[in-house]
């Protein structure tokens, strides 16, 4: 059988979702942001809620996500995406509202907004991309940077005595009564991508059922910031990030998952 016999519209099994715009993504080659964008938009396409969804873009590499996601979007001041999303959801309770934030935004400057939105149990979805670094500004240390991890501001590795310890914000918000679904996923292999998509689907479903806040952390690579190729960055992430940030559900249906 020739390739031209296979490439026919009736044999199509996978194509890029139409809820993404035609713009070429501004991210570095191999960056997990692109996959995370696609999963969020595939979920919105499958649920058929493109016209009822409002997204809030954060500051960081994902600041341009409103250019790529073909839904109504707004940009929030640095760290304030959950506060903006709270306002949007309270004024438009029938809309689906999500924030798309990185670790420098959500876990550093936006810690107060994040924790209080989670504590209030706002009926929104938070997509949190954790790559352990400030990627956009040149790979500086973030609160989520691992101990011993090198960044442009910690050239000899992060030490706890001088720079404090990395923060597990996802475990932290899982302790709050307002959160309903808290999970940590990754998008570096096909199996993990499929699991992450299920988690995002559940997060949007919870919003429909008015259950409370859903928080999906996606541990991602930052191969430019880590100074690695995409393939070695993913391997490094498996070896170093996952022992500290273990994948899996942390809180399901309002109950902490016992480990």
């Amino acid at each position, binding site marked *: 059988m020739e390739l031209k016999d*296979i490439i026919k519209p009736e044999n199509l*099994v996978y*194509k*890029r979702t139409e809820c*993404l715009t035609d713009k070429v993504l501004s991210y570095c080659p191999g960056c*997990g942001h692109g996959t995370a964008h696609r999963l969020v938009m595939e979920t919105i396409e499958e649920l058929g809620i493109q016209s009822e969804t409002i997204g809030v873009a954060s500051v960081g590499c994902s600041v341009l996500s409103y250019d790529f996601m073909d839904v109504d979007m707004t940009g929030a001041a640095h760290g304030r995406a959950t506060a903006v999303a709270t306002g949007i959801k309270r004024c438009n309770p029938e809309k689906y509202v999500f924030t798309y934030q990185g670790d420098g935004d959500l876990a550093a400057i936006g810690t107060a907004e994040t924790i209080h939105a989670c504590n209030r149990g706002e009926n929104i979805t938070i997509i949190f991309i954790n790559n352990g670094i400030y990627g956009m500004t040149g790979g500086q240390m973030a609160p989520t940077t691992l101990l011993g991890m090198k960044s442009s501001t910690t050239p000899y590795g992060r030490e706890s005595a001088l720079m404090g310890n990395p923060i597990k914000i996802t475990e932290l918000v899982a302790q709050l009564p307002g959160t309903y679904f808290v999970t940590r996923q990754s998008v570096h292999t*096909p199996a993990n991508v499929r699991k992450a998509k299920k988690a995002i689907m559940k997060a949007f479903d919870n919003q429909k059922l008015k259950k409370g806040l859903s928080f999906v952390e996606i541990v991602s690579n930052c191969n430019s910031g880590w100074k690695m190729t995409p*393939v070695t960055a993913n391997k490094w992430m498996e070896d170093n990030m996952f022992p500290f940030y273990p994948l899996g559900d942390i809180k399901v249906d309002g109950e902490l998952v016992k480990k």
Partner: protein
Amino acid sequence: MAKMRGAVVVDVERCKGCELCIVNCPQNVLANIAAQVNSKGYPYVYMKNPGDCTGCTNCAVVCPDGVLTVYRVKE
């Protein structure tokens, strides 16, 4: 047992040559060549062994830039 045959269509101009699809392809179908680049200078991916593709969609699922479209047929 019916054999699955697949085909991958690459959006050459979007591809950034990150090689994540190459390492995640269970059949080693995909490859890129450093000398073959798109207009932005990225070495784009192509089907090196088209006969081995089963249309499993793993490459397209893991592609950050949504470059790949997958077709599958039962032979």
